[in-house]
Structure formats: C-alpha cells, structure tokens
C-alpha cells in the first residue's frame, strides 16, 4: 500500500514525465511532499498559476506530449483557468492537477474551496473530481490518453486532500478501457480517393495548413504532398513555420492580418484543402463567400469542426499525418504550372523600411533578428501588434518553430511559453517577443527564469501604448483614445537587472544589429527593450 499522493507521482513517472510546472498550497501539499520524497520530477516554481499552464503549454508544444501543471485549490485553481482555456482553444495537451478541500467539506464553502471542475467545464477536454483514491491510476492513464490523442487538449484532475492521503494498492494500468472515446486515426479510403481525384482535376488547388499539422507531427508529410502534387500552400497563424518562409510552394499567412499573396490565393483558387485548420474567424472572415464556386475539402481529427464554420464538399476525419501519408502514396499528373506562375506574380507591397527618428522599426528589426537567429530557433510571439509584426516578418527556416496563442489571444503568454519551450529544448535558441502591455502581465516570471537559470531571450516592443487597441480606437472609434496609454514605465532594463537578468535598450536602427548580436550570442537570459514609435501601425 502507498499513499494516493505517492501514486500520483508514480503515475507521472509511468507516463515519462520528468518536469512539472506549478505553485503549491495547503490542499495540494501531500502531492508536493511526495514529489520531494521521490525526487524524480523536476518541479518548476512559477510566480503565478496561469504561467504554470502557459509554461506547460510551451513544453507540450515542443515535446508534442501532454505536459503537467499543478495548482492548489480555490484561487490557485481559478488562476489556472485562463491557461486551461488558452490551451483548449489551441488544442494543446495539458494535464492540470489541482488540490481540492477534503471530500467531507466539499459544498460547505470552506476556505479556498471552489468548484473547479464545474468552472473549467466549458474549456477542458475532460475533467475528473477524484472521490475514490483507488481510481487514481486509471484516471491518470485515461487523462494522458485523452489529452494526447484525437483532438488534443487540457484534462483537469481535481484531487481532494483526504483522497491524496488515502492508502491504495498501486498498479499502473497497462491499457485503456474506455467504451466511449475512440478517436479516428485512419481516413476513410473512399474520401481519400475523392481528394486525389479532386486534386488531379483541379486547375487551381490550394492547401491551407493549420496548427493540427504540428499536433499530428505531419510537418514533413505536408511539404512532401505539396511538392509532389504541386499544390501551393498558405498558413493560418497557428500553422506558421510548418513551411519555411521562403519555401517555393509557400505563400504566407492568411486572414485579417495576413499577406496579400496568401489571401489572393485563397480567393482565386478553385479547390481548397483545409488541413488541421478550423476556419477560425481571424483566418477566414467570411466562410460562405470563400466557399462560393470552390470545391472545399476539409481534413481534421475533430469531426465537429468539419462543416461547423464552412460548407464542405469533401469531408475527411482522421489524423493529418496518416492521411497525408496516404495522399503522398498516389501519383499526380497535373503540375498546375499556370496557377503557380499566376500566384507567384502577386507581390506583397508592405513598405517596412520607413524609420522614425529615435525609434526602431519593429518590422525591420524582427527581420534582422530572424536573420541572425539559428535556423531551429523557437520564436514565441505574445498578443497584440507584436504578434502580427512577428508573424509577417520573422523569416522561418527548416526546423524553426513559431509559437503563439492563436485561438484565445491571451496576453502574457509569450514569456512563460518560452520558459516551457526552453525547458523542453535546452539546446535551441528560444526568443519571446512581446509588447510592453503584455510584458507587464507576465514579468513576474523573470524570477522563474533566474531561479531555473534559463537562457531565454526576451524582446519587449515598448510603444507605451496598448498598440492594437489604440489603432482600433483610431480607426473605428474616431481616434477617441481611452485606456490605451500605458505610460513610459517601468524601465524594463532596470527591472530585468533587478532580477539579475542582463538587459539593454535599443532606440535606433543603426544600433539594432549590434544589440541583436549581443542578445543572440548571450549564454544567459537576456532582455532587450526596443523603443517603438507610439503610432506604429500593425500592418
């Protein structure tokens, strides 16, 4: 017999978990005590529970396996909610473990009690309130399976204090016994054949790739299919960096902040293959307009996404990688040469070279940064103008990776996500790019960076504004600016140094390359504050 708390650690070991992100509290102490005693799991102490979720998210996205975050009951658990919802919107596999008050006290509104399984219900893939300690091994086994298969997502396990203390016979189940949950992996062969036929008969086919490609590990297969069948590709924000930016078949990011080349191709194609993309409103503003006169093919692991936002001619449910492997096995006799030359003519006339005296141009700066970063760099963008600047200007190369929160758009995601990514891939360069607004929602994590001695690089684009909302107020609200001036404080360089993190400021393009060189070559954590003009535009 072992304590259920120890069994929880043994479950994590059995799942190969070596790192967890969390913040302790009274209701989760038995579990923490076992983490201490067993010593097999490296616990990263965050400075706010939301960041435990975001750090686990960054970790999960690099390892492509469920990652673990931990919080205590009540406020600890509610602080975690934003991160759970963020992971749900982007289909990131998380195991969220929360402490709960003792079972005999549940429902009595005792200290630090909250119904967290109830609160999280709309944005978890599944949740467990554990009432029977003996069920814990089965629950952990199911939770990892649920989080990491099908359409991935966060699973919450809420464990009351007395349940953690109970003694149980421990044996980790070797197999899953669930009669209800059976994710489809293989695609229907008849539908796959229909797609092959549609590609061969199409004059102007187009691939639209989304975050599902990463989730199924199909980065190689999608490029092989695009090259073999001679189909150009566009990307959603979540699909950025699947194709290197200068890949000959690649046209860029679609959507309201996307490139003209990509959006024109979307409008002019005759067959569109959406794969691992859910036709979100930021990517496709008017699905019914887009679908008019086109053959729409939608490939997704989640059948509920197919036909939800756009009418589909050929639906196909299954794992992207399995399906792309099938599609690659066929022969394609149409080289779509006229279509390829037509869309390669479309130029993106974004003028990014203008400079404002005493400021850096963030678009040019990000281009220079990506030129200097190693090919396999993990680049994390926050939310706001900095996100779009990064999407449209960071040049991704083969093996590079872009991370951001495309679905929820959660400010304060970039630094914790970068911490998680760096923990998962210590040998890779990891750069977080954020604005001065979002940075102030996450700057407590500088302490985590120092405590873990993580060489994470941070770029703060400081325009002293909540720039994207400021631009919205200018364009849509008659330039009546309210609550978007965040002032010229704090001094982020001094702040970083107060934590013991190297930091510098850059205010002119003339010194940009030198500062980028210092940032990239630093073996330690490094923060660069970039002075950006307050009226700098998003596009």
């Amino acid at each position, binding site marked *: 017999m072992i304590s259920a708390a120890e069994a929880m650690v043994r479950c994590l070991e059995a799942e190969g978990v070596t790192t967890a992100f969390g913040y302790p509290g009274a209701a989760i102490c038995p579990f923490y005590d076992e983490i201490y005693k067993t010593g097999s799991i490296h616990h990263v102490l965050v400075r706010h529970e939301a960041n435990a979720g975001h750090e686990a998210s960054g970790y999960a996205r690099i390892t492509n396996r469920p990652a673990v975050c931990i919080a205590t009951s009540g406020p600890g658990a509610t602080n975690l909610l934003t991160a759970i919802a963020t992971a749900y919107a982007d289909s990131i596999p998380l195991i969220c473990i929360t402490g709960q008050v003792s079972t005999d006290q549940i429902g009595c509104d005792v200290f630090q009690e909250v119904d967290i399984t109830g609160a999280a*219900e*709309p944005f978890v893939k599944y949740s467990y309130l554990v009432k029977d300690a003996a069920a814990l091994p089965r629950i952990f086994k199911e939770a990892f399976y*649920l989080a990491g298969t099908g359409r991935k997502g966060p699973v919450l396990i809420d464990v009351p204090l007395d349940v953690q203390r109970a003694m149980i016979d421990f044996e980790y189940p070797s197999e899953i016994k669930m009669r*209800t*949950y059976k994710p489809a992996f293989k695609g229907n062969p008849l539908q796959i054949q229909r797609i092959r036929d549609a590609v061969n008969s199409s004059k102007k086919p187009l691939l639209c790739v989304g975050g599902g490609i990463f989730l199924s590990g199909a980065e190689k297969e999608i490029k092989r299919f695009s090259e073999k069948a001679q189909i150009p590709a566009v990307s959603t924000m979540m699909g950025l960096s699947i194709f290197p930016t200068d890949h000959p078949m690649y046209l860029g990011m679609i959507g309201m902040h996307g490139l003209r080349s990509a959006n024109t191709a979307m409008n002019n194609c005759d067959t569109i293959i959406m794969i691992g993309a859910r036709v979100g409103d930021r990517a496709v503003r008017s699905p019914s307009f887009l679908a008019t006169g086109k053959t729409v093919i939608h490939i997704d692991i989640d059948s*509920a996404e197919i036909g939800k936002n756009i009418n589909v001619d050929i639906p196909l449910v299954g794992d992207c990688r399995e399906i792309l492997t099938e599609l690659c096995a066929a022969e394609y006799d149409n080289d779509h040469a006229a279509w390829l030359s037509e869309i390669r003519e479309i130029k993106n006339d974004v003028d990014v070279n203008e400079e404002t005296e005493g400021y850096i141009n963030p678009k040019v700066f990000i281009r220079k940064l990506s030129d200097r970063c190693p090919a396999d760099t993990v680049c994390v963008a926050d939310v706001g103008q900095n996100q779009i600047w990064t999407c449209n200007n960071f040049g991704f190369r083969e093996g590079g990776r872009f991370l951001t929160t495309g679905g929820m758009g959660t400010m304060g995601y970039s630094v914790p996500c970068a911490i998680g990514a760096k923990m998962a891939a210590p040998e890779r360069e990891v750069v977080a790019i954020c604005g001065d607004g979002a940075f102030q929602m996450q700057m407590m994590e500088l302490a985590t960076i120092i405590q873990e001695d993580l060489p994470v690089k941070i770029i703060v684009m400081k325009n002293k504004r909540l720039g994207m909302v400021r631009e919205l107020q200018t364009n849509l609200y008659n330039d009546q600016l309210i609550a978007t001036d965040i002032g010229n404080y704090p001094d982020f360089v001094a702040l970083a140094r107060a934590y013991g993190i190297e930091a510098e400021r850059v205010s002119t393009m003339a010194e940009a390359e030198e500062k980028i060189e210092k940032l990239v070559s630093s073996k330690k954590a490094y923060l660069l504050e970039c002075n950006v003009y307050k009226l700098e535009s998003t596009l």
Partner: protein
Amino acid sequence: MKYTVSVLVENHAGVLARIAGLFARRGFNIDSLAVGATNDPTISRITIVADGDEHTAQQLEKQLNKLVDTIKVRTLSADELLARELHLIKINAAPAQRNEVLTVCEVMGAKIVDMTPTTMTLEISDSPEHIQRFNSLIEGYGIREVVSTGTIAIQKGALTIK
C-alpha cells in the same frame, strides 16, 4: 424544425451538467430533456427534443458525440419514433362537472388519480400531440397546475439504439 435526439451516456456524476452546459454555450434551444437509467445500470439514456435547422441538428449531434461520456447519439426522424410524455394536471371540478370530466378521460385514455370537493387531478401518458388535444378538452374547466416530464422516445419496430 423539431427533432428528437437519443443519447446513451455513461451513468456517473457530472454527465448531465456536461450535456446541459454544451447546450447553453453552443446556443442550442431545447424543448425538453428526459434522463433515465437503461437496462444496463452503467448507462443512462438522455432524450432531447430540440429546435433548429438542419445545420444545427448536425452540429448538435457532432458536439454530443465529441463529449467523452457519450456512448452513442442518434437523431430520430418523426416517422420512425414512438414518443411519450407523462402529464399530471390539476383542474377545477365541482361535483356537477365530475361526470363530464370522467367521460373525457375515458375517451382520451387519461386516469383520475386524486379528487377533492373542488378539484380533480388527472394523469395522462401519451404522445405530445395527443396530450395537446387532451389539454384543449379540459382547459375550459380551469387548469390549476400542470406537472409534466420531458419527451421520451423509442424506435418503432425491432430496431434498438445500443
């Protein structure tokens, strides 16, 4: 368009909350909902009557299928199902009116389950359409209170949903 959905789910705590939450956040309108155990005590059946166009019906079925606790979802068309509701109706009925009410109940297949000097309580179990006709016959007496279940439904013939 009204449609009836029969859902088999795991019979454990929290399942109904998950289903109800799904309806609320996806904006599906439900007319009635009935939950009960099946011959397998680990499985419950939820019968939902909802309103919406074909796209909504399809989405509802897919979203229900996506819930981890869902074992099976079937949308039943009006001509393949037998639907039943149970209503308990308390009406005003003075002694002079009792024979009239008795006749209506006999013809329509309702039972009288309680009586006071001024009221009668009627029980009817039948299809929603039949119950509507029954209601129109007795509403003249003055309805004091109605308690009704949601619609439950089963397929006609030998077919089953398992």
